[in-house]
């Protein structure tokens, strides 16, 4: 019963979204907007229960498929297929569960906010969109949902629209994701004539026997990978995630843990198609490698608490891209899962700090450990969950990936994964040190743990992160590599563990010890990198400014579109319309400026049109003329012959 009605799962939050409209501050005047929060909380709980019960019913069952017809036109049939299986229902359970916690967190974090109707309707939209995405089995509908989520991102980042950085952040998030979406759309358009289907399951079957020209499939594969590149905030389309940090923090939790992973999910589903072309999978690995290492390095140099975590999300997604590009979809899904929980927890704890220290500047924080131990411990658990530190989830997921890479002798990727893990460890411990160690600062002089509605979901999230390995074990995500126990597996685990320890140790040495020893140092000295040489400072600056990606964008793509649009505008006004305006000018000089209807002007309109008509006529008949003229000429020429 719960299985056949899984299509209802996205409908509950969607209903909440629709009802939220009635609490718009333009409509509700005498009472406040809070009921909308409770309402959406309720629909989320219903969706969560439904997911859980359906999952229970589907445990160890083969997947089932449902199909809803949407549109049939000409020779195109669009129907919405749903895949109901333990995996999709499990994903939907994770999504609704995290949504529930985030929505509770938002009750506390935004308790003084008046825009709940918009916030909760958008959170609900994300919930509905993501549950629909994991349940749906069609590339076409996945594309539709991703596009709608792109719009949702625009609106939720633009939530505090009074503020200018929010507005530009929303813009950039929308446009960057849209670029990815449209490249994906190109892939979607191109794939159908070849495969004849958009259903993932049928695509997988098709891919087994597909005979396609290498260039064609390479281009399609690259297009299909490019869409998720922007979703998952991979280089070079990663900047939006940083700017999206202007949005309200609860939405950030959701975005960094789940929404960025939607791209990875689609990519996992498309893996058979991508594997058809070494170019496409190579691109996934390359992009993932750059993002993993680059993102974690950038994160290690940020001074903004939220932005450290945003770049770490990029980095972790990079690891997932490596996994998908190399064909290990199971590792990729484990990574998605562990990342979602750990990241959500990290952001929740950072939000709990920001909420009552009024700053997210790491250089202005410090000395919070003794007074904020709940948040501190949550941060530690989150960091441990993300890193390869046994027994938490990140360790198992990463060592699983590492094992695969070892078996396939992907040494470069293996090195990148290990190095990234070390850098992530460094970045997280550095952040921990800057926030919690040392003496208190003017910003942290008074810091009590905040409202219980913030702390409660945070501690629950911490509990979930700690118990994730057990759940993964139950789900069979760990079994694959644990029983092997062969030699390289164990040594790999050690390598991984040592890389984490190395990163942690270096950061501890630079950011926790000095702050504990000499607490009299001024904030600036403490905050800046411990090593003072110009080269290091320069490198730090490059990293802190995100490799100057923003500036590069501004000088390239943005400048190009801007210049081009100005040019065509100029062209339009002065060249195409200019033939007309020329007369306007002559008449201006001859003192007849305002006589628009005069004959000279009309003649020029006519002249312009005639000119272009002749041109277009020539163009339209060109191919024909080319065929026709020679024959005529030959005929004439022949006729001239005696």
């Amino acid at each position, binding site marked *: 019963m719960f299985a056949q009605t899984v299509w209802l799962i996205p409908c509950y939050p969607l209903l909440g979204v629709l009802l939220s409209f009635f609490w718009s501050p333009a409509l509700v005047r005498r009472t406040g907007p809070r009921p909308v929060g409770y309402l959406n909380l309720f629909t989320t709980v219903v969706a969560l229960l439904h997911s859980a019960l359906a999952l229970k019913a589907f445990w160890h069952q083969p997947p089932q498929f449902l199909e809803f017809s949407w549109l049939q*036109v000409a020779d195109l049939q669009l129907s919405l297929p749903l895949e109901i299986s333990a995996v999709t229902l499990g994903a939907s359970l994770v999504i609704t569960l995290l949504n529930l916690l985030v929505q509770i967190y938002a009750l506390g974090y935004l308790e003084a906010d008046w825009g709940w109707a918009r916030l909760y309707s958008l959170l609900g939209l994300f919930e509905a969109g993501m549950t629909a995405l994991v349940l749906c089995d069609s590339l076409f509908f996945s594309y539709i949902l991703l596009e709608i989520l792109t719009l949702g991102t625009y609106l939720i980042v633009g939530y505090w629209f009074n503020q200018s950085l929010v*507005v530009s952040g929303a813009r950039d998030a929308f446009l960057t994701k849209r670029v990815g979406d449209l490249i994906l759309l190109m892939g979607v358009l191109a794939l159908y004539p070849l495969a004849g289907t958009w259903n993932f399951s049928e695509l997988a079957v098709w891919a087994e026997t597909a005979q396609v020209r290498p260039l064609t499939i390479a281009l399609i594969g690259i297009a299909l990978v490019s869409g998720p590149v922007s979703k998952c905030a991979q280089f070079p389309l990663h900047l939006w995630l940083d700017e999206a940090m202007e949005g309200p923090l609860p939405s950030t939790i959701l975005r960094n843990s789940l929404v960025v992973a939607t791209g990875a999910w689609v990519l996992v589903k498309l893996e058979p198609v991508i594997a058809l072309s070494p170019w496409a999978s190579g691109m996934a690995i390359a992009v993932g490698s750059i993002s993993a290492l680059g993102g974690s390095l950038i994160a290690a140099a940020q001074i903004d608490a939220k932005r450290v975590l945003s770049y770490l999300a990029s980095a972790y997604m990079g690891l997932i891209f490596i996994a998908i590009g190399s064909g290990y979809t199971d590792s990729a899904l484990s990574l998605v899962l562990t990342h979602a929980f750990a990241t959500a927890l990290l952001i929740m704890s950072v939000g709990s700090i920001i909420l009552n220290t009024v700053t997210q500047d790491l250089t202005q924080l410090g000395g919070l450990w003794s007074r904020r131990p709940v948040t501190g411990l949550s941060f530690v658990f989150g960091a441990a969950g993300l890193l390869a530190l046994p027994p938490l989830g990140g360790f198992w997921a990463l060592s699983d990936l590492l094992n695969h890479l070892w078996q396939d002798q992907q040494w470069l990727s293996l090195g990148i994964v290990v190095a990234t893990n070390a850098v992530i460890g460094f970045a997280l411990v550095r952040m921990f040190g800057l926030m919690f160690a040392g003496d208190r600062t003017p910003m942290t002089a008074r810091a009590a743990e905040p409202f219980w509605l913030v702390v409660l979901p945070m501690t629950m999230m911490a509990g979930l992160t700690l118990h994730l390995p057990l759940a993964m074990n139950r789900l069979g995500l760990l079994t694959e590599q644990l029983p092997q126990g062969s030699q390289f597996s164990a040594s790999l685990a050690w390598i991984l563990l040592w890389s984490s320890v190395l990163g942690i140790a270096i950061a501890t040495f630079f950011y926790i010890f000095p702050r504990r020893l000499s607490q009299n140092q001024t904030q600036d000295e403490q905050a800046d990198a411990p090593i003072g040489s110009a080269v290091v400072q320069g490198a730090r600056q490059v990293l802190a400014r995100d490799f100057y990606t923003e500036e590069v964008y501004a000088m390239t793509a943005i400048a190009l*579109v801007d210049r081009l649009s100005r040019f065509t505008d100029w062209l*339009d006004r002065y060249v*195409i319309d200019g033939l007309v305006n020329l007369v306007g000018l002559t008449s201006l000089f001859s003192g007849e400026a305002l006589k*628009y209807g005069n004959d000279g002007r009309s003649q020029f309109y006519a002249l312009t049109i005639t000119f272009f008509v002749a041109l277009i*006529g020539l163009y339209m008949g060109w191919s024909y003329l080319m065929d026709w003229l020679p024959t005529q000429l030959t005929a004439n020429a022949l006729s001239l012959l005696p």
Partner: protein
Amino acid sequence: MLSPLIWLPITGALLIAFLPTQMTAKQARSGALAIAGTVLLWTVWLFTQFDLGNATFQMQEFLPWLPMLGLNYDLALDGLSLMMVALNSLLTWVAIYSSPDKTERPRFFYSLMLMVSGAVAGAFLAQNLLLFFLLFELELIPLYFLISVWGGPKRDYAATKFLLYTASAGVLILIGFLGIAWFGHSFDFSYESVLQVQLPLQAQLILLTILIVGFGIKVPLVPFHTWQPDTYVAASPPVAIMLGGVLAKLGTYGIFRFGMGLFPEAWSIVAPGLATWATVSVLYGSITAIAQKDIKRMVAYSSIGHMGYVLLGASAFTKLSLVGSISQMVSHGLILALLFHLVGIVEDKVGTRQLDVLNGLMNPLRGLPMVSALLILSGMASAGIPGLVGFITEFLVFQGSYSVFPVLTLCCVVGTGLTAVYFVILINRTCFGRLDSQTAYYGKVSADERVPAFVLAALVVVLGLQPSWLVHWSEATSASMVAAIPAAETVQIAEAIPESKL
């Protein structure tokens, strides 16, 4: 059955204009609205009578008029006409509804609006080339007055430009029609008999080119478009709705009916060129829109881009792309009308359309929150966000055209990306941002101003979620049009291009 679509508005127009009673602006508006509403209801009834499976013309009406000239009163309806007539009836009602109560010289204004509506409906229904031409020209005069009397600054300039361009279009179309008679040696201008005429390919090409250019001016296609931004900007919002929503469709309708329909062989030859032209139009319109500072001008350029998709679908002439193109005409009409209506409200309340000046209209108490929300909706619909009608029609065009013109189709997809760019600029500047506390004492938006917006927005959403209600009407017609075009060329192109260009 079809005549009321023409004669109801025209009679109404005459009544409002010449009834000797005194009439306030409000009464004139109510009268016009009642007539437009009746026409709209009549159109709805037509839908119930329409035979979906029938690809040929339906509900024919015939009256001999001047048979010696080949001119007869000959009306009929197929899927394409039905969509266009419906759009006309709806947008006429919306345009009249959105006209402010305080319009000057109201009787003249509303009778002209109804006149335009009746003439346009006639043009969409005409089964006789000369009748089409007459009605096509008839609509021109009232519009000239609507622009030059009730327009904004530079209205004379814009009206003259509009008149001259459209008149030139008319001349070309007339030349084309007469050319058919000349080459075909028959002076029967009824559509059916013209269809029977066999013309040499050479003549077909010449005539087709002339007609495409003639109608292309109306659409408009680059480079014949420069009248359009000036005119849209100068025209008052209701007139702009008629211009952009309905009259532009006369151009694409003409290309479908009298270009593709009459010269299928030549069509298959010029199609690749036409598709390129359409793509250039799409990219040119979209890119130029980005640089605009005036919302109306921006929307005008966006319209150039969106009409390009219609032409792309027509050039590809697959069943899917044709259905897509016809639906795209409707969806573009709805979205454009919504945009112009909202811009009209913004201009009325805030007193400017300049993107550099506008700010923070999302503010729930002092801004225009509902208008902003709908502006976002319509902008996103135009940018092709799924769930709204703009997406599915564009998608059908793309999917239908991809197999024929893959590279050009992908270029047009880039065009939708550019659309997103300028609509985000528009929304960011108008809706987002902070209200200026020195100036933000704007008036309230009345319920009357909201109704048309809600109606259009509801259609945009409902047809976006349930597109079969939009696309089915034109399926049979599209199929029969495609069937008329020689298939060999199609197949040849379809196979040649993807492999060579991909």
